[in-house]
């Protein structure tokens, strides 16, 4: 009986080494990352005071609403397309005071540095596969909120 368990553990180890190796190889594919960054304003008001603002797309809104926040409405303030070659870094201005610096670390991993008024505020390193969102956020005036939503373009 013990021998059977030992054999099973050994088999599992070999399976892990050989079967999952190609997955690693695929994941290590390097290339340019095409991203989309949105500056989003979260509010309790159904209408934004700025007529240039428009509600965020439905999928992003759904995901933002799934977060544990009170704001039911999200407006897109700005949207930027970002292309980052492998191991390169790109800086994109999202608003007058807000910039993001995105570094492509390979394997769909990004390092995003948030810059406020020219000063780095925070740095986030995260795997960002297609369909997933990386959201940086904070408080804004009048109990509203700002978000920088980053995702891979389809």
């Amino acid at each position, binding site marked *: 009986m013990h021998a*059977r368990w030992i054999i099973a553990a050994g088999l599992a180890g070999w399976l892990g080494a050989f079967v999952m190796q190609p997955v690693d190889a695929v994941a290590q594919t390097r290339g340019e990352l095409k991203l989309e960054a949105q500056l989003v304003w979260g509010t309790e008001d159904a209408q934004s005071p700025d007529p240039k603002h428009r509600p965020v797309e439905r999928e992003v809104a759904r995901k933002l609403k799934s977060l544990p926040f009170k704001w039911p409405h999200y407006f897109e303030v700005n949207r930027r397309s970002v292309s980052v070659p492998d191991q390169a870094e790109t800086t994109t201005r999202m608003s007058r005071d807000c910039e993001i610096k995105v570094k492509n670390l390979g394997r769909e991993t990004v390092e995003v540095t948030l810059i406020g008024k020219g000063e780095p505020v925070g740095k986030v390193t995260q795997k960002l596969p297609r369909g997933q969102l990386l959201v940086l956020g904070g408080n*804004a005036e009048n109990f509203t909120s700002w978000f920088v939503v980053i995702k891979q373009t389809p």
Partner: protein
Amino acid sequence: MKPDLELLLKVQALHDGELSPAEAERMRARLAGDPAARTLLREMDEVRSALHRYEAECTLPESREFFWSKVRREILQSAPSPAREQPRAPAWAFWLRNFLPAGALALLVLTLIFGLRPAGIFPRSTAMGVVAVETALRDTGAVTYRDEAAGVTLVWLSFADENHFTPFTSPDTLPQ
């Protein structure tokens, strides 16, 4: 002295009322002239009265039928049930019985190998939703929240100038 067995039986029969009237009459006549027989009869009377006096009276708190039905039910319940005929195990049961535990262990090992790789040792750790956050400013606080189902990673930053990130034309929200 050894008692006369026939006398003993006759006295016993008289005492128990088992003699015919004629025999009982003859026996009483004999008792009148036989002190030993009278003594024997008196002892029998005393024994009977003593037994009647000290016999413990046992009463059931429930009816007789109910009491015995309970006894019967308990006997039936405690009796071993007849052995059921075991269905013949299918052929694959052998493999299931012998290799299911091994398979479960193999799955566990796989999960440990590929699910718990520590960050910094294997690059693929970032694929497991591990997020690394550094804050550059001294007064910045960061909270990370990961919703696997929605595929969202949120990093919530708190710092002094955060209110100026979204410029608005409304007087209420316009930065001063």
